């Protein structure tokens, strides 16, 4: 148990991820207000994206835009992969962010439609009004 916590403490990013993920998860499931639920959802999704970027980070490395290419775009010298951060997680992240915003758009459309119909954003109140 102690060593688990110790292992985690060496990764502040990971702790931030865990906190954001669990808190967002909790709000998303339990909060009665629909918009707050969506804020929780947003936090959950960003926390996972955050973890994904963290996986791709490299110490002593710079952004993955290759240096030393001449005007025609051919490399002027040998490229050392250790100099640049890992591009693949960043690509997955870009995809995930766009997917997240798409989901947000649809969910907000649903919420707006619910408000037009029932005049409330509170789940309990809406259920009350249905009956």
């Amino acid at each position, binding site marked *: 148990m102690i060593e688990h916590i110790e292992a985690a403490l060496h990764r502040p990013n990971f702790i931030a991820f865990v906190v954001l993920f669990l808190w967002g998860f909790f709000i998303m499931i339990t909060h009665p207000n629909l918009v707050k639920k969506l804020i929780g959802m947003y936090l959950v999704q960003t926390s996972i994206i955050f973890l994904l970027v963290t996986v791709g980070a490299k110490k002593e490395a710079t952004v993955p835009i290759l240096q030393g290419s001449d005007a025609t775009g051919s490399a002027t010298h040998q490229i050392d992969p250790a100099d640049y951060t890992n591009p693949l997680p960043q690509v997955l992240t870009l995809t995930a962010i766009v997917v997240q915003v798409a989901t947000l*758009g649809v969910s907000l459309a649903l919420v707006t439609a619910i408000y037009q119909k029932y005049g409330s954003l509170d789940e309990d109140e809406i259920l009350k009004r249905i009956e």
Partner: protein
Amino acid sequence: MIHAHDSAIVRTMSRLLIPLIQLFALYVLCFGQYGPGGGFVGGVMLGTSLILGILVFGPESPACLVAKKVTHGDGIGLIIFAGVGGLCLIGGGEFMNYSNLEIPWVDTESHRRYLGILLTQIGVAVDIAVTAISIVFSLSLIDASEESHD
């Protein structure tokens, strides 16, 4: 919900900002291969420049009419993207294998791939810009179709 903003400062600033945003969006779109940015960011910025117009000048303004016209192109971006991919099929390669694009004046594979990336970025940008505007119309409950009597 959305109505024309009556503050002169906001209106003038937006008038100045909108073309600037569009210019920057085009820069980001075209230089995505050399620096950060690309289709997604460029598309969202193009979209937001029009969204700013809708929010500031209101749903009756010419800016909004332009945006409404734009939403009729829903799907064009994806057709460009998938079309470039499909052209590679015709060229004899796999789907999205840009080195098989039949572009007459480009002969090296890597340059074809470069052009393929550029074309598909434009597709992505168009799609995202159109969709962002379309979602904003939906969420703000503005009727996007002007010929609603058909």
